[in-house]
């Protein structure tokens, strides 16, 4: 299995499309950081203007934690697309390239092939989020320094002490890997069904967008569906910045997202094991 996974990772990282994600992150995030450098203090002042009339604020609230927190919100659309771009190609790409024939005629089970590709897809997801974390926090710290983290939760302002923030980010990024893992698994499942990577990428994004729209519309029917949509749980990373953390919500979200990953993977495996390779 290790051989297969390393082969799959090698193939992933030999394709130029893999680097799109890393390049986008490396460009987009500094752009956001520069924008925050110019406008960030103003927006912080705006957010806290009521308080600042009675209180004098001292300290560096415009710091890398604040900006990185903002950046994590881009998990909504940008990052899922970059994940689907690679995950959607994992199986469909072999069909497009005609390379199933040299792969599946080898003495490795279809189970091993699917699982190795799936693991490789998860590794890519992890690496992309890691890259996101490094650029956000690392580059952010160089530009802004660190400090207390100002954010809102449930209508309150929460300011977290400087030494109380990093571990929360580690958990938040870890959670992001999990939630983007669901996106990757979904794209992977679609990839097992078709012969071209475009379909899985578009379908995955369509599902995410539709789910998000359904969640946002305030009709009771939609709101009753909402808890069953995995996009509802992607935002739970914000809970790590509550004080105290709502552990119950976090655990529930983790389990639901894990369940999605298991289901999507199993479905892909089921499909692939029975698939007639005609390409």
């Amino acid at each position, binding site marked *: 299995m290790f051989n297969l996974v390393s082969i799959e990772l090698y193939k992933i990282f030999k394709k130029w499309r893999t680097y799109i994600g890393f390049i986008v992150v490396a460009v987009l995030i500094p752009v956001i950081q520069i924008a925050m450098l110019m406008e960030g203090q103003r927006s912080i002042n*705006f*957010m806290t*203007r*009521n*308080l600042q*009339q*009675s*209180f*004098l*604020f*001292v*300290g*560096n*609230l415009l710091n890398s934690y604040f900006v990185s927190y903002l950046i994590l919100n881009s998990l909504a659309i940008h990052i899922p697309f970059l994940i689907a771009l690679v995950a959607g190609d994992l199986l469909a790409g072999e069909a497009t390239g005609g390379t199933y024939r040299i792969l599946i005629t080898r003495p490795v089970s279809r189970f091993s092939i699917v699982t190795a590709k799936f693991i490789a897809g998860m590794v890519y997801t992890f690496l992309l989020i890691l890259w996101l974390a490094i650029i956000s926090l690392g580059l952010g710290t160089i530009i802004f320094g660190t*400090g*207390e983290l100002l954010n*809102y*939760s*449930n*209508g*309150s*302002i*929460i*300011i*977290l*002490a*400087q030494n*109380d923030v990093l571990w929360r980010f580690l958990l938040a990024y870890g959670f992001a890997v999990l939630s983007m893992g669901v996106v990757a698994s979904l794209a992977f499942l679609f990839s097992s069904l078709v012969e071209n990577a475009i379909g899985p990428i578009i379908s995955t994004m369509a599902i995410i967008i539709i789910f998000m729209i359904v*969640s*946002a519309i*305030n009709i009771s029917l939609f*709101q009753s569906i*909402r*808890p069953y949509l995995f996009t*509802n*749980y992607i*935002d*739970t990373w*914000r*809970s790590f910045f509550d*004080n105290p953390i*709502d552990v119950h*919500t976090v655990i*529930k*979200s983790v389990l639901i997202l894990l369940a999605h990953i298991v289901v999507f993977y199993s479905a892909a495996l089921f499909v692939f094991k029975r698939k007639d390779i005609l390409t």
Partner: protein
Amino acid sequence: MKKIVPIILIIAGTCFGQATNPDVIIKNLKEAFSKVKDYSVDADIKVDASFIKVPEMKAKIFYKQPDKTHIQSTGFAMIPRKGLDFSPASIFKGKYTSFYVKEDIIDNIKTSVIKIIPLEDNGEVILSTLWVDQSNNVIRKIESSTKTNGTFVINLSYDFSLNKYPLPSSITFSFDVGRMNFAPRNEDSPGMAGEKKPAKNITGKVFITYSNYIVNKGIPDKVFEEKEK
């Protein structure tokens, strides 16, 4: 002789009795405080408020007569603006009218209650009530109503064994700043979508403990020119 007795009585009255003339009370406060040319002090700040959660903060506060203040902090700190400067000069600035209300007891200490109404229109405060401890010439409590920021109450405690100046060892600053104006961000916890949370008043208390006063040792002006860090 006939003139001396009333004079002695008046002096005795002002020294040992409680004055009821607000101008006198204020004058005494100012005199007592004039001994403080400058100071720096370490402040420990705790905030206990609805809708704000902040960790315990530390800052260093600098003061120099007549009205220079500066805060330094390694991290983030938020300090009530009214808690920066206890000089009577800052409390009693501009034109105002004052009157004596009554005697009151706070924490077993006899205080004289006076009210200050600023006559100028450009200030934030519209009315202040002060509880003055005349035996020590310090203010024990201030209650102020502001134009746009609700009301606040400052309770001041002193430990004269630590320093002989009219500088508090701790204050409790209670505030009520009215409704929050920012729109609550559109993040909802799972399962609770689109519920509009009613805007609530921000109320709370700030507890500041002062320690390590360094008084009248000289603070260069340029300290106060630094941007608040």
